[in-house]
């Protein structure tokens, strides 16, 4: 399906994470290749979201390390992750309610803005030019996600499906090399799901972005992802391309609920 998958770009080595007594992740290692669509699946509470939060530094794993393009990170923090070109969407939408769609996406580009506070205050040369250039880039993302008609609406007023798309748009505006998607299709109807799949494939195809996808909908995952990691109760119980994983006995038992 995806022609030019490169070599390993992100490698997680025996990561384990616990909140107080609760063990969210135990000794998980898997890797992600460049330009790949890597899915993480598992029943509710399997530790999928926590895994994502470890990758982009929101949670600090008790042990294990993250190797990003060969650079070792014992402790990733959100800023370093963003700087390294990792951006993400959120399971329950984390948009800035006080701003409209354009401003939300422009905020995504703040790492690329060079002008300092004084220049911005005087709306002077470089600050002005930069602002307009970034606006043009955001318009391309708006055009890509087909949300032209809501570009000036405050985000709080948008229906759920569109808010998800703006969340994706903000992540895209950061021009990431790795995009973490936390259940992008949760709560969507059939038509919206098809659109989201098309977007994800187009992003991967057109911009070559590596995608780490968390999703419940098996049909979608098996259809669009190159390789799948299966988590259950914080442990890795399967890793490989969709068909291998679908066939593996542990995965089937985990999903069909054989008692542990």
């Amino acid at each position, binding site marked *: 399906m995806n022609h030019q998958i490169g070599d390993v770009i992100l490698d997680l080595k025996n990561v384990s994470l616990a909140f107080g007594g609760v063990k969210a992740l135990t000794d998980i290692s898997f890797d992600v290749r460049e330009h790949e669509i890597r899915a993480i699946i598992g029943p509710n509470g399997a530790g999928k979201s926590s895994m994502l939060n470890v990758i*982009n530094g929101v949670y600090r794993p008790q042990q294990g390390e993250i190797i990003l393009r060969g650079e070792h990170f014992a402790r990733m923090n959100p800023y370093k992750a*963003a700087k390294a070109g990792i951006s993400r969407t959120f399971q329950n939408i984390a948009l*800035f309610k*006080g*701003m409209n769609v354009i401003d939300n996406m422009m905020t995504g580009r*703040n790492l690329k803005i060079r002008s300092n506070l004084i220049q911005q205050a005087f709306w002077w040369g470089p600050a002005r030019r930069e602002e*307009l250039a970034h*606006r043009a880039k955001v318009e391309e993302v708006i055009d890509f996600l087909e949300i032209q008609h809501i570009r000036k609406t405050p985000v709080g007023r948008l229906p759920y499906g569109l808010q998800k798309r703006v969340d994706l748009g903000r*992540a895209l505006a*950061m021009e990431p090399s790795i995009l973490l998607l936390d259940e992008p299709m949760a709560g969507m109807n059939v038509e919206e799901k098809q659109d989201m799949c098309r977007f994800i494939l187009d992003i991967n195809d057109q911009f070559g972005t590596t995608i780490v996808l968390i999703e419940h909908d098996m049909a979608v995952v098996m259809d669009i992802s190159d390789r799948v990691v299966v988590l259950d109760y914080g442990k890795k119980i399967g890793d490989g391309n969709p068909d291998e994983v679908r066939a593996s006995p542990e995965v089937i038992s985990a999903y069909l609920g054989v008692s542990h």
Partner: protein
Amino acid sequence: MLYRENGQFKTTYAADQQIFPIAQDRWTILGILLIAFIAIPLLVDEYLFRAILIPFLILSLAAIGVNILVGYCGQITLGAGAFMAVGAYAAYNFHIRIEGLPLLVSILLGGLTSALVGIVFGIPSLRVRGLYLAVATLAAQFFTDWVFLRIPWFTDNSSSGSVSVSNLQVMGWQIDNPVSKYLFCLIFLTIFALLAKNMTRCAIGRQWMAIRDMDVAAEVIGIRPLFAKLSAFAVSSFFVGTAGALWGFIHLASWEPAAFSVDRSFQLLFMVIIGGLGTIMGSLFGAAFIVVLPIVLNQFLPALGGVFGIKISTAGVSHAELIIFGGLIVFFLIKEPHGIARLWSTGKEKLRLWPFPH
């Protein structure tokens, strides 16, 4: 009703992102500026300048500063009075200790000093949030009160702790009569409001608003909360400090620390919340409401009382003033939690959609 928007299409991003994209708004603002700069100096009498217009201009400037911190960056502060005090005393010290320092420079230096102090008192905001932060900023308030009462160096060892400035002039333009004071403050307010508007529509403004709305998400997209919060404190304190310098130099001419007490901080917070959080226009409305209301009540109530035949003593007037003031604040918070600015913008929306319903 007054809007004719047909034909005002935008062919460049610059046009689309200007402060007032609609021509009618631009005309209105131009009209207001003309009235402010030309009509008022000619028509208005001296009492209105000293008692209402000059305090309104200076407190609007301070309110914009507070709005940047509370409205845009979401950090509630009860220490604005302290930063005004720092601005005033710093400007005073620059003014008297360095001979021949132009007035403008000393005021702006006052603002800068206040910005530095603002950063120092902004540091707790990195760990402390919401109401805890508000009370933490009260520490700044009481500390500065104490400093300017106790350390004589700041007040140039004046025995009584009160300081005064006189014969202010900027490049020969004597600022002593009410009209020149009014114009001086108006120039300050216009420039600073423009700066604030530019900042809030640029990257730094978005960072503040991101921190306000959801700081976890902001961090994830690469905004450093440290830089964002402290820059908000710095800019806010710079505005409030400059306003403090103007309040001391221009409005009072001679003042003591009690002029910048904790009541001033509450007053500034009132202005921002009633005027409208997160809007520059809101700060101006708030300032107007809080400055004009007590004076209007003070003059209006006895006349009203007279009409109904009841003689209200001055004490009765000030009690009534207190009650009405508190009552209006509660009324406003219920009717329009987003302040007068929201009423203004809804009104504008209605005019644009006239005759259709909003």
